[in-house]
């Protein structure tokens, strides 16, 4: 059963039709078939299947602009260890936006908005912020812990 009901899917389709202007690439890293297994911490992936459905729903909301690559870490080389992990980027660029865990609830809204902003290239930040960030010369990682509600 999909996480998104028909009404939400329709809302997403309508938003994407209005707000997407360029292509985006989603990549989903998962370990298939481990959702119902009871495994030691770090080995199972209880939300991988739901994450796959969510990512597919997003891709199907704007199939002409959103591409989705699903990476099964059990058969493909990957340095991603936290599963599921969803990444977002312009096609061909190294992803610098990622969600670890199922992006449901509030986090789903951040995924939708991130897709729209990456597609349009509009970050919506103030000039002052942009000026300060332009001074960065070293890599900076911002990790935000959240919960679904």
């Amino acid at each position, binding site marked *: 059963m999909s996480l998104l009901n028909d009404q939400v899917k329709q809302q997403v389709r309508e938003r994407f039709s209005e707000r997407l202007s360029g292509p985006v690439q989603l990549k989903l890293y998962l370990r298939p078939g481990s959702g119902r297994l009871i495994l030691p911490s770090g080995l199972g992936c209880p939300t991988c299947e739901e994450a796959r459905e969510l990512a597919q729903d997003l891709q199907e909301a704007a199939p002409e602009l959103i591409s989705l690559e699903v990476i099964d870490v059990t058969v493909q080389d990957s340095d991603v260890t936290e599963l599921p992990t969803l990444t977002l980027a312009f096609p061909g660029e190294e992803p*610098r936006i990622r969600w670890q865990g199922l992006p449901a609830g509030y986090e789903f*809204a951040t995924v939708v908005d*991130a897709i729209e*902003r990456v597609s349009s290239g509009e970050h919506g930040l103030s000039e002052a912020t942009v000026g300060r960030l332009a001074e960065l010369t070293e890599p900076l*990682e*911002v990790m*935000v812990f*959240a919960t679904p509600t």
Partner: protein
Amino acid sequence: MSLANRMTLASPQITAISVEATEFPDLAQRFGVQGVPRTVVNRQGAFVGALPEQQFVSSVLGLAGVNGQPEAVEAEEARQVDRSNSSPLEETSQAD
């Protein structure tokens, strides 16, 4: 979209990771997550709470040791967010 995600569009130096805390208890414990949102910068300094853009950026840059204001982090440390009564698609412009 979270401010962290938006910042990646303004600087190629920035990477943003959103972690669902309950799915990764080991990570949450490692980074001292007791309230959300908890923002961890370069896997070292951290602050809790949803901040408006200017303060969020100052806090992040301060913790990274870059032209920020570290004192703002402490002032906002205790702020918490209750998102439980909101519709997901209505919150996209909210601060982190």
